[in-house]
Each structure stands twice: as C-alpha cells, then as structure tokens.
C-alpha cells in the first residue's frame, strides 16, 4: 500500500499536532521556498508536476498562478473550502485531520504569487472546522511560521478564516470573492479572471483545499516524483469521495487511473445487498450519468478516460446508484438542489431551474404526460451554454443524460 500524500493522518498518528507535523518534515517545504527559492521557480515546479485543480475544474494549478498580474498589488490567495457539491466531503477530512499540511500549502501558494494575506473561505456549516483552523493558525504564528519577516526574510504572511453562510454558489470563485467582500455571493462576469481582478479588485489566486494540500510534498520531493504517481494525463493522487448505494462509503486517496471497479468493490466493499451498479455520477450532483456495464467499471478514473464515457471526473465525488433506484427520482433530487442554490443573477439559470423543478414534480406524478418529459429535456437544453456561471450548466447535466441514457425510467407509470 502506497503512503498517503493528502491523507497523511492515516499513516502518521496525531499529525494534526504541530510538533508531530514538524517531526514529519512539516514546514520544511515552506522554509525552503521562502529562504532558498524564487516565486517563479515554485510556480515552475508546480507547473511541471502536472497538478490540476482538485475542486472540479481540473485547471493546471501552476498555469493559473502564472496568470497573476504583477503590475497590480497587493495580491491575495483564497483557499476554497466551500465544499458543497452533493457527494463531496473530502476537504473537511483534510482540514480536520491534516490541517498543517493544508495551511502550509496555503503559505507556499501565497509566497509563490507574492501574497501577504490569504483567506480560507469555509462554508458556514464548517463552523467548528473554522474554529479549529483558527487555533492551528495561532499555533503557526506562535511558532514563527506565519507573521512578519518569516525565517529572517522580508516575507510576511497572515492567514485568516472567513465563514460563508449556506450558499453552494460561493464555491464558484468569483461568487466567493464577492462573499468575502461582504456581498451576496453572485458570480461576476469573467473575464476579467481573479488573477487580474480578484478580491477587492486585486490579483487573486483561488485554489481548492485538496489542491493546496498537495503543495508541501511537491516542493519537497519534486515535480518528477509527483508525476510518477497517477497517469500521463492526470498526474498524482486524488481523494475519491465514494457515496450512495455502497457498503463502505468514505474518502479514498488513490492514484489517478484506479478503476471504478477497484474503488467500488475493493475499497467500497461493493453495492448494498449485492445489487448491480446501474449508474455512476462521478462528479457529484453536477455529473452526467454514466450508464454502467462491465467496460465502464474497468475504466480508469482519470480526466481523459472518464470523458470517453460522456462525463467528467470533476471533484471525483463518485455517487453509486444501483438497480433499486429510478433515475427520475435522482434528477428530482438534483433539480431541487440546483433550484434552491441558483443565485438568481442570470435569467437562464434562475428561470430554468424553476421550470425544471415544476416539470419534474409533475413527471413524478402517476399518469404523467410524456410531453412533459420532452419539455423538461427541451428546457434543460435551452439553458445549456447560456448561463453566467457553471451552476446553471451543471443543473442540466443529470437531466439531459438521465432522460437520454435511461429513457425507461421516464415512462408513464400506470397505477
């Protein structure tokens, strides 16, 4: 069994204690970065490591950093700990169990882009996690890993937590920035991207918790080491959040390229009551449905391979659906979720999710009209490529692929 990269708390007891973390190489990478490296060198290592954003978009992290506007100061780093996608529950475990590695990652990213202040934006429900991180940040300040003139250099850094208050949309990076600014969490029109116009209008890098937690080991062990894990297309390891109709739901840190079968059967203990897998949503409620057969189960989970199945890996929040579940019931859940979470700023999403909700409610009644199923599909398709941010687009994925790939689940029920 390979040693964990993100979930080191599963190998090292009490790694959430500062002295234990330090004994296990903690803060060596940050110290090396600040005292021996130039910010551009760090960005290059991260670029070469192949690390891609773990929040769902999969954008190359080093490339994102390289867009930062060096003519406009100050710079900010924001850690995205909003984790609200149905099916995603990895960042909370990282922050609760391996907090210093995450915070060291925030510090390394901050140094790499020249930020002297970083905010960790946690969803409001993570109130206890925020309190815990505040304590850990205070311990780091006390030990000289945060604050003024770090390691005797000119570099200074403060990290602050900021709590959201129950809005999925704030996981979208520009909505998150609005929220930190004390406004409603509604996305901005992009471009300009945060690297140019971010928090308080200043250049900002927003990275997911898991992405940041990779950084200390990448800096310590090098880009080639990280690339040697995973597949050529998807470097490194990933936390797969497994949920739904499996015996052992949970987080599993595995190399990219692990197959669905290995995740569901070897790690997740198989499906409840031995039922067959009917469908997989690999990226939470935002996913397209994958219609499952043997070939699908043996598909490696990396960004490119999952795309060949007509879906995206996203944040690798694998929801397993078995043959006891009807797809119309599933999309009823996802549509209600997106209707509730739509921020209301753009019309296609605000109105589209509203009408999809009413249509699915009607379709779920006995003796519904098949014309409503066609209309639902029509509304979803009309929303596509027209919404201001990905939320609206995501809300249509399960609807369109559900109706197209599982038509039998939308047939008229005769009571």
């Amino acid at each position, binding site marked *: 069994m390979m040693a964990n990269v993100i979930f080191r708390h599963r190998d090292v007891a009490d790694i959430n204690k500062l002295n234990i973390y330090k004994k296990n190489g903690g803060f060596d990478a940050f110290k090396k970065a600040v005292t021996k490296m130039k910010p551009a060198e760090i960005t290059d290592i991260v670029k070469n490591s192949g690390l891609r954003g773990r929040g769902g978009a999969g954008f190359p992290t080093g490339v994102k950093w390289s867009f930062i506007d060096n003519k406009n100061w100050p710079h900010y780093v924001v850690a995205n700990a909003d984790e609200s996608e149905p*099916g995603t529950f990895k960042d909370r475990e990282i922050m609760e169990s391996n907090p210093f590695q995450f915070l060291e990652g925030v510090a390394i990213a901050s140094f790499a882009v020249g930020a002297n202040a970083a905010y960790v934006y946690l969803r409001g429900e993570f109130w206890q996690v925020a309190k815990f991180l505040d304590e850990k940040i205070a311990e780091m300040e006390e030990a000289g890993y945060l604050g003024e003139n770090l390691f005797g250099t000119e570099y200074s850094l403060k990290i602050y937590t900021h709590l959201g208050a*129950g809005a999925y949309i704030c996981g979208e990076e520009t909505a998150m920035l609005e929220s930190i600014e*004390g406004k409603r969490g509604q996305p901005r029109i992009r471009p300009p991207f945060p690297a140019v116009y971010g928090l*308080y209008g200043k250049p900002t890098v927003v990275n997911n918790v898991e992405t940041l937690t990779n950084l200390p080991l990448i800096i310590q062990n090098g880009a080639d080491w990280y690339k040697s894990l995973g597949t050529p297309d998807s470097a490194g390891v990933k936390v797969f959040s497994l*949920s739904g109709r499996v015996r052992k739901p949970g987080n599993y840190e595995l190399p990219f390229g692990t197959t669905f079968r290995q995740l569901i059967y070897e790690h997740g203990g198989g499906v409840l009551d031995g039922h067959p897998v009917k469908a997989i949503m690999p990226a939470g409620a935002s996913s397209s449905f994958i219609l499952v057969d043997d070939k699908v189960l043996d598909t490696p989970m990396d960004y490119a391979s999952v795309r060949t199945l007509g879906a995206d890996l996203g944040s690798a929040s694998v*929801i397993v659906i078995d043959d006891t579940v009807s797809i119309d019931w599933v999309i009823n859940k996802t549509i209600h979720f997106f209707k509730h979470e739509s921020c209301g700023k753009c019309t296609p999403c605000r109105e589209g999710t509203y009408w999809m909700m009413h249509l699915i409610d009607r379709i779920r009644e006995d003796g519904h009209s098949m014309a409503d199923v066609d209309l639902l599909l029509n509304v979803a398709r009309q929303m596509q490529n027209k919404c201001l941010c990905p939320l609206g687009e995501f809300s249509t994925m399960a609807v369109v692929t559900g109706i197209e790939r599982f038509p039998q689940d939308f047939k008229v029920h005769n009571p």
Partner: protein
Amino acid sequence: MSLAKKYSKEIKQIIAKYPPEHKRSAVMPLLYMAQREEGYVNKEVMQEIGKLLDITETEVASIVGFYTLYHDEKAGKYRMQVCTDLPCALRGADQFMDSLCANLGIKVGETTADGVVTLEAVTCLAACDKAPMFQIQGPNGLEYHEDMTVDKTMELVEALKKSGAEVK
C-alpha cells in the same frame, strides 16, 4: 441592547481581519455574532451593523436574505437541519426525516410546542458518507450529528429540551 457596547472587543477583532478600507467584509461574521442572542436578527440589529460598517440597512438585509444560515424570524431555540439531498437520500434520509416528524409530532418547517426544536430539510452538508445526518444550529454555533438513528436523535432532543428548559 447595543452590539457595539456588548461586544466591542469582538467587533474590533472581526473588523481587523480585513483591510481597513474594506470594512464591509465584516458583515457576515458580525451577523453570526448578532444572531447568537436570539437565533435571528431583527431590523435594529441590521441597522446597527450597517452603521458599524458604513453600509445601508438594505445591504445588510440582502445578506440575511441571500444566505440560508441567517434568519430574520424567530424559530425554535435549536434548528435541526436534516440533509435530505441525493447522497443522504440514497441512504435513507427521507425515511429518517419521516420518522423524525412522526416522533416529534411536527412537520418539516415546524417547531415543537415547547419552542425548543425546529425541524428543517437542508441541502448537502458534505457528510455524504455518514448519512443519515443533520446539523444543529443553536446559540453555541453549529454542530454535526452523523450516522444517526431515530432513537439516538430522540435522546438528543430530550437533552436539548432539558437544557432549553433551564435557559428559560
């Protein structure tokens, strides 16, 4: 009661987290602080927060209206917020919710007669592997309760009722 008088030190600490020219950023933490009192915020509180941060009362109210964890109406002392979203529902969250309603004798959205517990259905709380689960939003912040059963939940409700009665 004026927030500025009661919490002057905490207010300063909160505002200091943000650049001095961007005081408005403190609106969310200040609302959490104010909500500790009664479990909701009223017009006066919103006015005072607006004054503290040089924004209008309407701007503060728009934050309260947008984010689900702020409330402008009184409810039970504890809001029991059960996740009934897809991953939890695949593990029985809807049936769990139905049983809670039957045991508490209230519907979703209602409050027990003694004013202690309000039962709410909420979207994903990022604990999909530990369903059925809920969070309790109360005077002491937010608390997760995971891998729950109806029996364990009713024991918890009894404990809350006892502590709620003491506070009264």
